[in-house]
């Protein structure tokens, strides 16, 4: 079997007495859209943070393309082809949309210790920024300062920023959070397009979206993986049903 793009093995992370990530193992194959779901407090964001390098695990390992990245700082992981979007939009608010994306492109196009030439006139960076903005349908808003963009537009911009670094793997932390119905539909459509180009790990609460998009789904409850499989298998899984019906006792007992 081919080496998976992302391999997570026996990851453990505790916060005081709470085990937020409890022996989590999962593989993401190249080209796959792998969704991670679970009720509130299941440890999804904690898991993502360990994948991106914002949080260190207490034990276990993460490898990307066969390379161990468990303790690599965030900016180095990014250079290896890992990009993320934030659950709570995290952008440069006083920069324009185009500047936000161009900076991401710049991080992957040679040294940034250049002190004299006007970076906003670098055609390569501007073109990359405009291409990424066009990809998410924001090209017409390129020169608008981010603090003047709507919430939905900011979520799309998050995606454009992640895309501009030409990642191998995209980690999306609740890209639909706070979106209206039409905005959500647009986002699902957009992700349908993007998945053809890049492998994606998607953390999301919006179940219809997850089942429409995912190749495989991993279900987390109380930090533990209780099921992993294709959407049909997950839909039929008794433990998952119970978890989402709120019968947590049975699930934890069982798992």
């Amino acid at each position: 079997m081919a080496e998976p793009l992302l391999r997570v093995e026996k990851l453990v992370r505790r916060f005081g007495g709470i085990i937020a990530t409890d022996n989590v193992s999962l593989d993401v194959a190249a080209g796959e859209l792998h969704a991670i779901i679970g009720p509130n407090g299941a440890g999804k964001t904690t898991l993502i943070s360990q994948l991106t390098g914002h949080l260190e695990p207490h034990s276990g390992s993460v490898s990307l393309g066969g390379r161990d990245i468990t303790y690599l700082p965030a900016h180095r992981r990014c250079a290896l082809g890992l990009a993320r979007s934030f659950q709570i939009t995290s952008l440069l608010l006083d920069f324009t949309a185009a500047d936000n994306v161009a900076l991401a492109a710049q991080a992957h196009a040679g040294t940034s210790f250049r002190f004299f030439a006007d970076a906003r006139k670098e055609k390569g960076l501007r073109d990359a920024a405009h291409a990424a903005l066009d990809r998410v349908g924001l090209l017409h808003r390129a020169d608008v300062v981010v603090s003047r963009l709507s919430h939905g537009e900011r979520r799309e911009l998050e995606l454009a920023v992640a895309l501009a670094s030409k990642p191998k793997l995209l980690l999306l932390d609740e890209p639909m959070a706070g979106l209206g119905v039409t905005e959500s539909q647009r986002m699902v459509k957009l992700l349908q397009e993007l998945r053809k180009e890049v492998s994606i790990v998607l953390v999301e609460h919006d179940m219809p979206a997850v089942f429409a998009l995912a190749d495989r789904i991993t279900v987390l409850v109380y930090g533990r993986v209780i099921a992993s499989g294709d959407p049909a298998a997950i839909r039929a899984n008794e433990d998952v049903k119970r978890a989402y019906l709120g019968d947590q006792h049975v699930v934890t007992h069982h798992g």
Partner: protein
Amino acid sequence: MKNLTVSKAVTALMLAGLVLLPLYSQASGNVFILTLFTRIVILALAAASLNLIMGFGGMMSFGHAAYLGIGGYAVGMLAQEGVGSGFIQFPVALAASALYALVIGALSLRTRGVYFIMITLAFAQMAYYVASGLARYGGDDGLTVYKRSDFSGLINLGNRTQFYYLCLACLFGVLFLIWRIVNSRFGLVVQGLRSNEQRMQAIGFPAKRYQLVCFVISGTMCGLAGALLANNTDFVSPAVMYWTRSGDLMVMVILGGMGTLFGPVVGAVVFLLLEEFLSQITEYWALIMGPLLLLIVLFGRGGIMGLLGRFNRG
């Protein structure tokens, strides 16, 4: 004429005034005003260098006056030891400032926010006490510079007008560099880090490296101001490094407009002119200056440049 804004017009007028000032001084025979403005131009340079890290980089350094002292002592100590050439004194002043900035920056940038302010302040106070302890170089009393830096006839620093133009050229040169830097790749990264450090790390920029380099550039620029200041006063003492001086520089930047290219120059001109004229009226001039600053900071977010900018929209 769409691009002719009030703030641009004021800036242009002010710059033209600075360039033409020696002519006025000569015509009117008013020597004092030239001396005063030489000091203003030098401190504007220092404020502009502080603005690079504070306004553009978001690094609130409360120890920027240390570089004024380091640049000044480099000139004074070399002069005392018989090295009078400006071609040696100035490079040494810049190198010493850069080195100090490198060490202090590497240590201070481990912290953020209030701690960064406090640690830069603490280091500057250390520099102050070290200078006070230099018995050979005057200690507390300071060090008289008997001969200004000698540039082998290229330019005579003893001549008021020539010295003024040298200072002005340095100011314009530094402003030009800052303008290029803030629009360069490097400058965008530094400003991005000010805006959202977590995001910049996530797209692949290691924060500290960029901030440290910015810190060193800023310190070196301020060291130049220090070397000029020592020549201007023919004297350097620990007092130039005292924390209130660092505070003055911060006030100039905030007063003029943080993160704008010409804000610190406007701030320095207004601050020092106010100080000069209010202190002629009353010895309690700080009582008037204080509330004035308060008003501008309270009602003019973005300082004077911010206030001027509002005229266009209003």
